[in-house]
């Protein structure tokens, strides 16, 4: 049920991105690496700990 709701929306909201300069292969690969790295970090630490550290970054320590 949820799968369906979200996948339809993903498709619908993709439109504004078509008007922007499309990312190069290099940018796509780099983004994959960053997301994987964050996934690893989240798996290694507790999500709560990562979140708190992110928040601290935002307020500038």
């Amino acid at each position: 049920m949820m799968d369906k709701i979200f996948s339809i929306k993903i498709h619908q909201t993709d439109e504004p991105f078509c008007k922007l300069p499309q990312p190069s292969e290099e940018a796509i690969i780099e983004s994959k690496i960053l997301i994987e790295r964050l996934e690893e970090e989240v798996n290694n630490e507790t999500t709560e700990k990562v979140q708190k550290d992110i928040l601290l970054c935002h307020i500038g320590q």
Partner: protein
Amino acid sequence: MAVALVRPNTASKMFKIFSESLALGYLSAVLRENGIETSIIDCYLEDIKLDDLIQRVLKGDYHIIGFTISNPSSLEWTAKASQLIKKEKPGVHIVIGGHTPSFDYEYILQVVPQIDSVARFEGEYILLNLARAIINKHEWRTTKGLSFRDQNKVIANELMPLISDLDELPFPQRDYLPYLIDKYPDDYSVYINRGRGCYRRCTFCSVPSFFTIPNGKIIRQRSNENLILEIEKLVTTYMVDNFTFIDDIFILPSKEGKKNTIQLAEGLKRRGLKIYFSIAERIDNLDEEVIEELISSGLIRIFVGLEAATQEILDKLDKRISKKIMEERLTWLLTKNIDIEISFINFLPFNTLKDIRENINFFSQWGLDILRSLGNRLEPYPGTSIHDALRMEGNLARNGFFYNYIRNTVDPKVDVLYNIIQPSIPFLALISHQLRTTKTLFWKKKTLLKNFDIFYNYILLLQKAIVFEVRELFLILIDYLEHHEKIDINQLRSEIYEVITAKAEKWLSFLLEIKKQIKQEVLSHDG
């Protein structure tokens, strides 16, 4: 060396802010001005791990090691560091300072015997007096502003009054600025401070108590001459042009405060200082004339903590602001050619799904970056009135040095929503961080970009597209929660996680592309 001042290493590399610790800069400036040899060890910037810190500390042969603590996470790291340091060097004096320890000193001193003392509230002269006492082998336990253990008791000495004239402080030491400029030329920002204190008493903020518990004038600002002199020195010494004012309140809410800020802007221009800078300010305190003047002297970004989009919640947080004013100010601010950063607290012990929907709708309507705030859950810091209220209600939990509220007592589905989105929050924060750094890069390189307006419009369009997409996802989820009683939290959580991580990858590739193009254009300009 007599004293080492340490900033804990607590943040993920991916979210790092490349700026110095001004707290350590001020502390070391006062110590050095008084002839006390001091070194700064910034474990956060240099990514120094605990073992490496111990090696540095052993080599340095210090009498005192001081840690700056800005939050529970850095306290946790410092407790571990203190245990390791004391094992190798039992005679060294470990002192900590900052907001959390100023309020939670009793607990800290009880559970971390390796920490010898806590310097409470403004620390510059407490640390100076402590260092003098220890170096001269005098009794340090009589130092004003200090707390320490005496057998099984925790003693809190009489507090030091607040520093009355900030111009009397030496300029903060900038030991790490050359390192930042060299290593992170596209990302660093020079932190600078105009004043201290805040005139409001928001329930979630520890700033009001920090500056009202000790005696003295709560709100103080440096003179414009003193501030401009420091900026001028930094510009000529390090060739920097990018500043971030870290004041809680930049423009004092009076005719005099407004006039004074206009004079500051004029002074910067008169001295020919071509800098650009960010400020943080209450939105009701933003005056069009002052902002215009600041923009003409280099203002590029304003951070405003808005906290909630419903009047009832704003009142509960004691923000003393009306939603109408918020809306009016945001509308005219967005006509200015500057970056507006906002934050709000999406998860509170007393808000509802309806309030959260209003936050999302209201704050996203202008395409502002709401991504980080979406997962923002109140952390009731010690020293805040919300911390005390939650404790009284039995709704406060302590986990080590961290405090959390236990549950939402008004709408349990708010906790369910948080539970579902929790694993996805770091990915939203990553996008927000990348948006911010892309905009910072743009501003830094603006003068070198031929078509800077096209670039900026691209960035804003991308931000809007991302924000609208996230908004849709959250609204669907909220709607689902509102209309279903039996909810499979685990299924929803992994569903949302999958969607957000996939989307984050896409958003990120667009952001990285824009960054790449800015850098390419700068290179071709240099070439």
